[in-house]
């Protein structure tokens, strides 16, 4: 049976080697992502410079929110987005069948045979912005609070990977599921801003069925000691639990869909 500590590096190695067959496209992808996010953040900073605060958050706090959002997304999506966006095609073309006849968990194979190094541009930008923002905000750091911050980040990345997995898994049963990514990215856009600027129904939605408030706003607000609607003092604990809970639900959904996989015919 496959030994994962050997198979996972071998899959990642094969994927990176296949990407480096087209080095120009890879570097261009990094640059374009860096430029796209860089210009968007510049726009937000200019708007904030004009109006001062957004929902009671000043620019360095918003910068921390944006960088946390991008870093959590990049970490989660590098394990999942491209891999599960291609799930429709895997089902339609029958390549999912070929994955299911390998003696390895299909999730492990799909995730690590497509581990996306294209997020390097996102990660560099997010870390740079985060380092600057952390130097500007007023937080009293202790070992415990620093560890909590890292755990929030891991939990947020788990939410992203779990939701992407669930969307991709849906294609195993419905054959088509990419429209769900459009819904995801709709809430993902909203998750860049303080939750309290949105109406109450949307706040409830983003803390429950579309839990992307836990991807950045809730953990960052908990770190900064800002009030969090509906959760109050539970914001920190909820941020820690949201990721593992999403992974549990994602695992159950994935298993259900694998068991009910029908293929696309033929």
């Amino acid at each position: 049976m496959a030994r994962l500590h050997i198979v996972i590096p071998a899959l990642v190695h094969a994927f990176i080697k296949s990407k480096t067959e087209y080095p120009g496209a890879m570097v261009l992808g990094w640059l374009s992502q860096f430029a796209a996010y860089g210009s968007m953040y510049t726009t937000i900073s200019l708007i904030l410079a004009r109006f001062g605060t957004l929902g009671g958050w000043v620019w360095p706090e918003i910068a921390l929110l944006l960088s946390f959002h991008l870093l959590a997304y990049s970490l989660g999506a590098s394990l999942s987005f491209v891999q599960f966006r291609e799930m429709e095609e895997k089902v339609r073309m029958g390549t999912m069948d070929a994955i299911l006849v390998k003696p390895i968990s299909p999730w492990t194979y799909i995730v690590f045979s497509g581990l996306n190094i294209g997020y390097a541009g996102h990660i560099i930008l997010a870390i740079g912005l985060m380092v600057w923002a952390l130097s500007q905000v007023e937080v009293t750091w202790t070992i415990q609070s620093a560890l909590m911050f890292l755990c929030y980040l891991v939990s947020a990345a788990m939410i992203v990977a779990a939701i992407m997995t669930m969307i991709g898994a849906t294609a195993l049963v419905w054959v088509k599921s990419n429209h769900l990514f459009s819904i995801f990215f709709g809430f993902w856009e909203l998750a860049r801003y303080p939750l309290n600027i949105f109406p109450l129904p949307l706040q409830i939605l983003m803390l429950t069925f579309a839990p992307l408030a836990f991807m950045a706003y809730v953990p960052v607000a908990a770190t900064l000691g800002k009030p969090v609607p509906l959760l109050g003092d539970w914001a920190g604990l909820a941020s820690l639990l949201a990721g593992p809970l999403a992974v549990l639900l994602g695992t159950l959904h994935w298993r259900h869909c694998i068991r009910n996989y029908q293929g696309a015919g033929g």
Partner: protein
Amino acid sequence: MAIISASSVEKVFRQPKRQAGFGGAIRSLFSREFTEIRAVDGISFAIEPGEAVGYLGPNGAGKSTMIKMMTGILVPSSGTVEVLGREPHSHRITNAAEIGVVFGQRSQLWWDLPVRDSFELNRHIYDIPAPRFADNLARLTAMLDMAFYIDRPVRQLSLGQRMRAEIAMALLHDPKILFLDEPTIGLDVVAKDTVRKFLAEVNRERGTTIILTTHDLVDIEEICPRLIMVDDGKLLFDGELKHLRTALGSRRRLKLEFGTDPGPITLKTAALVTDEGAAKHFLLESEQTSILDVLTELGSGHDLKDVKLEEPDIEEVIRTFYRNKAQTGAAP
């Protein structure tokens, strides 16, 4: 003991009913109706270790669905499938380690990497010990003549070269059973011949059990002594290829050539189908009828010059069977 057994296996797919026109498409958004497609309908068989079995049928007969159930990809709707003593779907990973699967229409090789890299990756996935991997790689490379392209990216290979690499990859871990779904589809005559000879040798020399689905009867004639034939999800025939003709009720053809036209001839043992005057074509009424029976009934009062008995080739037998079925709506 059977290495594969299927007992009353059914696979039912539920598909939404498509309504005609734009209005129908809008209506179906609000009231979805479903039809059940019975892709596999009560099929039972048992396959012994070392057998080579061809699984034959027209498009939509349920061949690929059955392969997918045996390889653990799909779960049967009812009945049981056992492969190497296990239920393939609930023991998918253990089952996958002991079988090899080749899909004729979907590649398992990495498109942008040299063939060797895909083989190396499989070595890790199947946890093949290095010396066994090296031996198998050398043997398969020689047998399938892959040495000159094993270090080339897959995207640069011809279909025939790619299929040889796919088959080699499926055998690197010494599987007990090799499943092949349409392995010769799209290949040219030479490539088909290479693949067929290789598979027959693997079955004969290494005792690997082979199950292959195909449209091409030559695949079956050259690789598989046993044939399982399906249609509309149902088992039509399971046995040796040579017995298929009888099972499908196909009759032998007899040609009698006379020095001069003897006029109309009516026989109990053979039915006249074409009368060309001095040459007459008959269909023998039963498998037991011999030429001697026909000649005895014909008697000696004719100027008989030549007698020719023709066995219908297997492709014709099956073609006739499906044509009759399409015309009458039932098997002959």
